[in-house]
């Protein structure tokens, strides 16, 4: 497969946490295995959904790939080079191609900067020679691309709605023409109707620009909608990885099945029926 752009091999991220159970004056530390040997491939133009419950290591995995947290072991091969072994200068060059979208739309924007300054920041970092006017033009074009009025360029984050803030976040991620965007729960803080808008925007941009997405979410229905392939994480381990259709409709692992059955279905009749079955099962299990 020569069109694989990112290949993560046996990624491990351990944290030292205080072991409260051990006691003593000097607290002992124990290893928290946030990500414990995860491997996957990502092709150009593909969306890989990463799902799992809270605290299963989804975000840590993403942050380890772009070195926001230090990986304990493993490799992340990006275009033939291991990201985890690059020098800071080389990594800086790669950061132009890998951008990130964050969970909390408002918190991911500096409240003291205007929307234009926020979107222009990656340009300032990676294209140091660029003229101010040119930068401004690019920002305006990008605002239009994410469906916003370029006239708002001087507004501050608190003057936007959550959905608009997330669009600004997307614009910031797209401004350097990246090849991969890591979306860390980009819609879980938004209303359902706004979620749909943002997800559709992401899909449309992906179709236009041919970028790859690593789409992290705990909401299976959103992931199903946007991803070609889905990876299920559980306590830092890959439980299942496969095409979206296969994982959703024919889950192989019991954890995946549980996860799927926990998704509420927007149809009262089916939902009531399902709850009844669940209740019966629970009663049967209790004896």
């Amino acid at each position: 497969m020569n069109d694989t752009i990112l290949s993560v091999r046996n990624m491990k991220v351990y944290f030292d946490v205080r072991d409260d159970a051990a006691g003593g004056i000097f607290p002992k530390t124990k290893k928290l295995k946030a990500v414990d040997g995860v491997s996957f491939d990502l092709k150009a133009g593909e969306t890989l959904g990463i799902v799992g419950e809270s605290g299963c290591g989804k975000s840590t995995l993403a942050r380890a790939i772009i070195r926001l947290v230090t990986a304990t072991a493993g490799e992340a091969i990006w275009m033939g080079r291991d990201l985890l072994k690059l020098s800071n200068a080389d990594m800086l060059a790669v950061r132009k191609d890998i951008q990130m979208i964050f969970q909390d739309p408002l918190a991911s924007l500096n409240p003291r900067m205007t929307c234009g300054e926020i979107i222009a920041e990656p340009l300032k970092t990676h294209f140091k020679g660029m003229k101010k006017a040119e930068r401004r033009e690019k920002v305006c074009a990008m605002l239009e691309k994410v469906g916003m009025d370029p006239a708002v360029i001087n507004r501050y984050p608190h003057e936007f709605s959550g959905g608009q803030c997330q669009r600004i976040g997307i614009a910031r991620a797209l401004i350097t023409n990246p090849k991969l965007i890591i979306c860390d729960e980009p819609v879980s803080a938004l209303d359902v109707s706004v979620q749909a808008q943002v997800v559709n925007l992401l899909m449309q941009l992906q179709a236009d620009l041919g970028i790859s997405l690593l789409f992290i979410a705990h909401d299976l229905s959103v992931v199903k909608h946007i991803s070609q392939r889905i990876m299920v994480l559980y306590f830092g381990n890959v439980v299942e990885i496969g095409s979206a259709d296969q994982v959703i409709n024919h889950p192989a692992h019991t954890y995946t099945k549980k996860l799927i059955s926990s998704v509420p279905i927007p149809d009262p009749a089916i939902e009531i029926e399902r709850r009844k079955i669940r209740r019966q099962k629970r009663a049967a299990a209790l004896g």
Partner: protein
Amino acid sequence: MNTQTEIKGRSLWFDARRRFFQNKAAVGGLVALTIIVLISFIGPYFAVWSNEEIDWDVMGSAATLGMPSFANGHFFGTDDLGRDLYSRVLQGTRVSLLVGVIGAGISVLVGTVYGTVAGYVGGRTDQIMMRIVDILMSIPFMFVIILLLVVFGRSLTMLFVGIGMLSWLDMSRIVRGQTLTLKNKEFVEAARATGVSTPTIIRRHIVPNLLGIVAIYATLLVPAMILTESFISFLGLGVQEPLTSWGALISEGAGTIRYDTEWQLLFPLAFFVVTLFSFFFIGDGLRDALDPKDR
């Protein structure tokens, strides 16, 4: 594309300014403080006597001839030596305000830089830097300042050195704490993910978000500095004659109150109290304006 009119954004600073000016006590404080500053700089042009001139007619009978009067040009009366209190109070105002502003200025500069570096770099650097602050804080500073003034002689510079040494400690702690919370915000993470260098992150993302808190503490620090200086001057160790300050004037006034020259105490005291109240009101107003839940 750029031809359409752009909407001007309302920055957080703009919002804060509006909230501040809606606060009556704060605006009152600001007005009172402005008036005092103006008087201290413009007032001397109306003075009949300079602050070091001695009115030989009055000397020795300050209680009767040294009363505040427009006739002989002593608007605030004279002190026991027959020096014009009006000139001396204005002069003391300038010195005391200078001490307050410079002390707060040092604390803003040093404290902000020290605190952000310690907070942002974190780890061992943070530990060492903050333990140094702890150690310095545990030294009784009044004692050190008094020693400095005794050993190196009383001078305005020594006073600034002493006050500067103590003023930045609290500030650096506050700033460090704020930096710690800011550093884990997603917008800082976004900047790191896109490869912005650490100094730029501190300058562009951390410091602007700290300035609100720094401004509040700086305005509350000014009166604290003035109080410190006044205390030292009250002890007789502050600024040297013919320079004076509020503390020195109040000390002199309090010493002579038995001889029916209460104006010698009341005029400097009035300036002192009004200024301190103004600063506290402004500080409170700033806090209300800048703090409301960091949106």
